[in-house]
């Protein structure tokens, strides 16, 4: 019922506006079309300058409302990200000035030079000096921005430091998988044709390097203040590892591995304080349209102290034993308890 009422109201509004518009046309004929046109001209000139003033107030107001919800107030959580924030500020500054100046000129000129019978338009077809001025000035500003941008671009796409923690990130519809290289620090080979059952990543277990690799889903742990390198790939369609807090992003493409690296500066706990949000969590968003569950393809990164990270890693069991449970040490049914107890022992040892 309500929807019909709503439709009726909307149609009514339409009819009313339409009738007013038609009536205004008759009025203008009665008044004299030239006179009505001039009156409309004045009204619209006034509206344009009002739009400018209210618009600029609106821009300021919008900033007031939403600046606190952007990522700026809490700062970037990676070294590179802080430089990118600086660059964002500089770009906002430069473009902001251009924005205000050009919009003010546009609407102010429109208002000031509205039709007036006492004035004739100034014949001014071109002026080479002026045109050269606004060719070179933007070119200079852009050169500065390009130099800045490329400096950071080459830095962020450079090779990761040798001592970086390596994590393999795999996207599939609609979740993230993470693989750690284990004690040997080498990720075992993969072959997508081996993907089957528990071997959900298609790891080639004939490669000895794969035997100690650790596979976790959805939540990744990394240490703070240490470079981390992601080796990124996808199983089915293109996904994208979106790390908004670190200001980074990289596509996950089936068949073509990509990489990115960064140094996280704050642990998750520290970010809870910095952001003032007790529920703060580093999230990995999928930033490349990947199908109906795209919006729910969420991963979590827990950044923690080196000690906590080490401890967490120690509790993880190599994927090899999950895929081949019979090969696990102490794999006899009676003995599984010892596997569970090991982590507990480690926790005790750390004194927590």
């Amino acid at each position: 019922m309500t929807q019909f009422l709503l439709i009726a109201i909307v149609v009514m509004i339409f009819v009313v506006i339409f009738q007013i518009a038609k009536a205004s046309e008759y009025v203008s004929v009665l008044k004299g079309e030239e006179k009505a046109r001039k009156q409309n001209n004045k009204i619209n000139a006034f509206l344009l300058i009002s739009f400018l003033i209210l618009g600029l107030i609106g821009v300021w107001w919008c900033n007031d409302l939403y600046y606190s919800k952007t990522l700026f107030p809490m700062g970037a959580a990676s070294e590179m990200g802080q430089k990118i924030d600086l660059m964002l500020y500089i770009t906002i500054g430069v473009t902001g000035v251009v924005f205000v100046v050009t919009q003010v000129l546009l609407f102010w000129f429109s208002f000031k030079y509205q039709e007036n019978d006492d004035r004739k338009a100034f014949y001014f077809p071109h002026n080479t000096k002026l045109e050269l001025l606004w060719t070179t000035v933007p070119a200079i500003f852009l050169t500065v921005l390009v130099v800045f941008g490329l400096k950071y671009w080459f830095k962020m796409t450079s090779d990761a430091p040798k001592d970086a923690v390596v994590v393999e990130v795999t996207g599939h519809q609609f979740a993230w998988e993470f693989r750690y290289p284990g004690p040997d620090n080498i990720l075992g080979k993969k072959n997508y044709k081996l993907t089957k059952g528990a071997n959900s990543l298609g790891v080639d277990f004939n490669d000895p390097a794969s035997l100690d690799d650790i596979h976790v889903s959805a939540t990744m742990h990394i240490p703070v203040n240490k470079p981390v390198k992601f080796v990124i790939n996808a199983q089915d369609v293109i996904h994208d590892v979106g790390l908004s807090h670190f200001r980074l992003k990289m596509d996950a493409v089936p068949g073509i591995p990509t990489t990115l690296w960064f140094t996280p500066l704050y642990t998750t706990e520290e970010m809870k304080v910095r952001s003032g949000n007790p529920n703060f969590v580093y999230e990995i968003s999928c930033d490349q349209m990947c199908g109906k569950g795209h919006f729910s393809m969420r991963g979590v990164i827990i950044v923690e102290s080196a000690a906590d990270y080490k401890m967490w890693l120690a509790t993880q069991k190599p994927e090899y034993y999950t895929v081949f449970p019979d090969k696990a040490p102490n794999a006899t049914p009676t003995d599984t308890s010892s596997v569970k107890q090991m982590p507990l022992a480690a926790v005790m040892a750390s004194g927590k």
Partner: protein
Amino acid sequence: MSNVLELQESDVHHGHEAHHEHHHHETFITKYVFSQDHKMIAKQFLITGMIWAIIGGLFSVLFRLQLGYPESTFPWLEDLLGHWAKGGKILPEFYYALVTMHGTILVFFVLTAGLSGTFANFLIPLQIGARDMASPLLNMLSYWFFFLASIIMFSSLFVQTGPASGGWTIYPPLSALGDASSGSKIGMDLWLTSMAMFIVSSLLGGLNYISTILNLRTKGMSMTRMPLTIWALFFTAVLGVLSFPVLLSGAILLLFDRNLGTSFFLSDIYVNGKILPNEGGSAILFQHLFWFLGHPEVYIILLPAMGMSSEIISVNSRKPIFGYMAMVGSLFAIAILAFLVWAHHMFVTGLNPFLGSFFVLLTLLIAVPSAIKVFNWLTTLWRANIRFTPGMLFAIGFVSLFISGGLTGIFLGNSALDIHLHDTYFVVAHFHIVMGVASFFGMFAGVYHWFPKMYGRYLNNTLAYIHFWITIIGAYLIFWPMHYEGLAGMPRRYYDFSGWESFKMFGGLNEFISVVAMIVFAAQLLFVLNFFHSIFKGRKVTTANPWGANTLEWTTPIRPGHGNWVGEIPEVYRGAYDYGKDGREFIPQTEPVGENESHH
């Protein structure tokens, strides 16, 4: 004005000799359906484009409903959409189909075919002084291929597995694998087939526009005397002819991958429990092919709007466009650069950083000709005597939006910043403002300005002003706050943000944007109403040159017949922008240069 100019359409067919082929009696079919008159074809493009715009706009209202009210259900949606909105809530699959079709429809069917199809057809012969296009037959076919593409695309909305739903950029493997998405089943084949037809239409049109502009200019109409509209439409056509075939190749290869088992874009895929045999293809290759069209496409959409706004601003400022040659030069520069920047859409694909740096440089270089254009428009307004016709308001709105959206391009073109902003609402805000809304403003400016020439009647001014003010205020209210969402990293193409700690704080803003979007959509219906009502009931045009413009289209009869001019085509003696020269308000292009006229 002379009496000759007020001759009506019926006189035209008897009055002149040059057009032997058009002497035959026109039936309803040849006049309104399979017409070869460029003006009728233009109207066909315009009205088909408007129908598509309503559909595409309606889709955005539907998905904004989901974004604004992710927790609510609307039982009437189920009545409307059946199983796509089970329980009154749009399903994710259908949400993505809506987003995909909204993009496809608006980018290709409305802002390419509806915009340059309409105005290239309508204005080129009228403004260069030609009786029709170089090939009226190809011109007619261009429309009918577009019609065919429209029918196929429209039919894809009704297949059981739904229309394409992988985004308007249709990146494989998602678009290649029916196993990955229900929209990648038959809906995707229909999408690709429709697009192939669309490209044929665009090529037939484009080749025709180019050859008409190069060959059929009237006596005295040298290239440098052409109105800027024609220059813009010329570069648009060149861009289309050179880039659309690349998309066609991409589309065909994708059809092969989908149906013939080839591996152009597929490699190492495990999907839906199946190991696919494809090896050695590159998903990224498709993106190169797609964006090689996709980026020029942005300018295919934008250039006609720039050209028309330049013309309309000059006419209504009663001043010459400032720096005509610089305006042509910057259009040329933009057209060249448009081909050299495509990979700036691909900074996050793992592109070679060194290669990426060239694309950064070339992309930011576009800001220079863009700045020239903006400052030239501003200088045109300076010390003008401005008449705020609805067309002029939309042209001013176009400049405002072009500035706002163009500046954010400086963020996105700089790869280091793009990494953070890529695929967030910042991008949505950027391209909607600069290419979506701005081009719509150019199109509206064109419709309001040339409607009297199209139908011999005026649109209702009051409705036009209401339409303008709601649209420009609404456009800024919708898209300006989206920049903030983007700065927070909020990804585009999400069905629901409520599960995300990082993005859920924008729920209130999303609702606000949705409400404004619905109001703005309603205001567009007001325009549609005005348009169709005025065709039949609008105030009649009584003078041949109602805006006091210099260009040739205003030297034809009020309602020009097939062939446009009665008798000889007028000769041209000057450029299109002699407004306010030597104290005269305007000097039409057809007026010979006087002996005492000043040179500038």
